[in-house]
């Protein structure tokens, strides 16, 4: 028998561990979908709009969105805004982090302002962003960057502070200039910290992106949610929510994989 054959084969150990690894999340996902279905199709009243948000309606809505050729376009635009926003945040956050991490005076001077700005929800800048940049990609990129700059900055600064003083002393004994120390010692040493910062920034940026796209743009996942809501198409609203969740999961997994120490070694 084939089944018996595979069971007895050399692949047994790998297969079992594969099953062990995948069975719990798959079961949990199935249970979650069952709960979702029962909450929307069984527990909600017959006239409730919640009925539209049931999984059996969301899947056709998803294919409807794909058919109308709006979903992939929205996805692309959203990812583009996300990456530009992250890039802006890195370009601004890293140098500032280096400065604050390496200079006591800069740290003392900047500390209160950073603490003040960091605790302001990025979305509260929306009216100002719309007034400054008008309607289009720019306000969204700005809001994403405002949200993502702090993890990059703080992690870079922490990285600089955590550099082994021994390394710096060695560099000093070779009469390295500040610039040479930065290039040869500090930058390589803070790599992990910066990567962690960018990964955290990615998470924050993804969360801010969708609400930022609800204002002043005519494309993107956030826009699509509001646009579907305007037509009371709740199945489409939930379809886009599902897409946002899956994409966020993929982004985080990719970032983890790219930055994992095992892969680097």
């Amino acid at each position, binding site marked *: 028998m084939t089944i018996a054959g595979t069971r007895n084969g050399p692949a047994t150990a790998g297969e079992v561990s594969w099953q062990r690894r995948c069975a719990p999340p798959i079961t949990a996902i199935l249970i979650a979908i069952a709960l979702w279905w029962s909450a929307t199709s069984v*527990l909600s*009243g017959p*006239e*409730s*709009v919640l009925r*539209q948000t049931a999984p059996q309606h969301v899947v056709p809505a998803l294919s*409807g969105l794909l058919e*109308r050729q*709006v979903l992939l*376009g929205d996805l692309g635009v959203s990812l583009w805004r996300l990456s530009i926003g992250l890039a802006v945040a890195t370009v601004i956050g890293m140098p500032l982090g280096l400065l604050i991490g390496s200079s006591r005076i800069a740290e003392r001077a900047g500390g209160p302002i950073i603490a003040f700005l960091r605790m302001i929800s990025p979305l509260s800048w929306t009216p100002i962003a719309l007034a400054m940049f*008008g*309607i289009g990609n720019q306000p969204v990129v700005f809001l994403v960057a405002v949200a993502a700059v702090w993890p990059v900055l703080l992690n870079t600064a922490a990285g600089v502070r955590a550099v082994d003083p021994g390394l710096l002393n060695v560099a000093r004994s070779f009469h390295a200039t500040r610039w040479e120390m930065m290039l040869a010692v500090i930058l390589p040493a803070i790599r992990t910290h910066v990567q962690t910062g960018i990964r955290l920034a990615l998470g924050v940026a993804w969360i801010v992106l969708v609400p930022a796209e609800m204002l*002043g743009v*005519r*494309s993107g996942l956030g826009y699509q949610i509001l*646009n*579907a*809501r*305007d*037509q*009371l*198409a709740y199945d*489409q609203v939930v379809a886009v929510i599902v897409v946002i969740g899956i994409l966020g999961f993929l982004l985080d997994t990719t970032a983890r994989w790219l930055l994992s120490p095992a892969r680097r070694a």
Partner: protein
Amino acid sequence: MTALTRRALLAGAGGLTAAGGLFGLGGLAHSALFSAPDAGGALRVGYLPITDAAPLLIAHSAGLYPAWAVSTSRPVLFRSWAALAEAFISRQIDIAHLLMPMAVQLRYTLGAGVRVLGWNHTNGSALTVAPRVQELGDLAGSQVAIPFWWSIHNVVLQQLLRAHGLRPVVRRGASRSERTVELVVMSPSDMVPALANGTLGGYVVADPFNAAAQIKKIGRIHTFLGDVWRDHACCALVTRDDVIAGRPQAVQAVADAVVGAQLRIDADRAAAAAALTEGRYLPQPTPAVTLALTYPNPPYPLAHPDWLPQRLGFRPFPYPSFTRRLVEAMCDTVVDGDRKFLDRLDPAAVHDDLVEDRFVRRSMSAHGGPDAFGPTADLTRTEQVQFS
């Protein structure tokens, strides 16, 4: 005297957190599982703060709603069409004014039992353009804002654009060489600044936002929609099938009150404007509302002066010819959304299914018969739509 120990403090804080969390959870579960409390069987009215809502609001301010039929508390203010429709569908409110095309869409996509009782008002919208736009052809390659995809504004605008050799597009940049115009949905309050900073070539919306551009000299009224489609309905008075079935007398009382309010507004528009703003029903300043209700001087040479296109009309009777023409026009209208429900619709059959005019008919005869509301005594008319 017992000293407050650290352990007791921690336990207390933990207990408080748990109690707070459970309390919050209970509140969430309660509001998710139980619908809004019924107002003792009285119907509840919802509205958007625009002049379109005037009949519903004047009926309340003048005390025309009988207390047994309609909740005596103020009509509920909503901030967007979507929010108003959501509350209406989920039975938080029973009576509302909705954009007529939106009522069609809701009935045939959500199956939500939306029923049109009559017209709330006619006319009252215009296309406002930036100063650089002299004729409609100059809109090629620019963005034009509309308040909602399924609105009479979008429907008439697209017909108007096509009649002038322009092609309306959604989700694509407009191009001057291809003579396309990009449509975007915007809230009316954002339209005025967007026109001022040059993002928009124009917008189509209800007053007083057209008057605002005219007064601030950031744009000018190019065409009243009533100059394109004579006496078109903008908003309809709507309720649901279950309300009609369960409380027909109350629905009749609402129809009587609204029709009475429409006559009252028409009799003294300045007084109605004052009542709307002083009663804090509408947030706009009194002069703007007064202007929107009266429009003493047409701001451009009207194409059809005898249609009185600048004048907000308050005729309640829903003409079947309008519904039919509207559904036909909706089939030609591009929107960023699902249009498949239109394929199933027979424009000739929609009116009888969507509109229930027996209440308004009765109210009109109680208020002096059809003659009191306009010239067409036999309650039929031919739609007049002209694009020049």
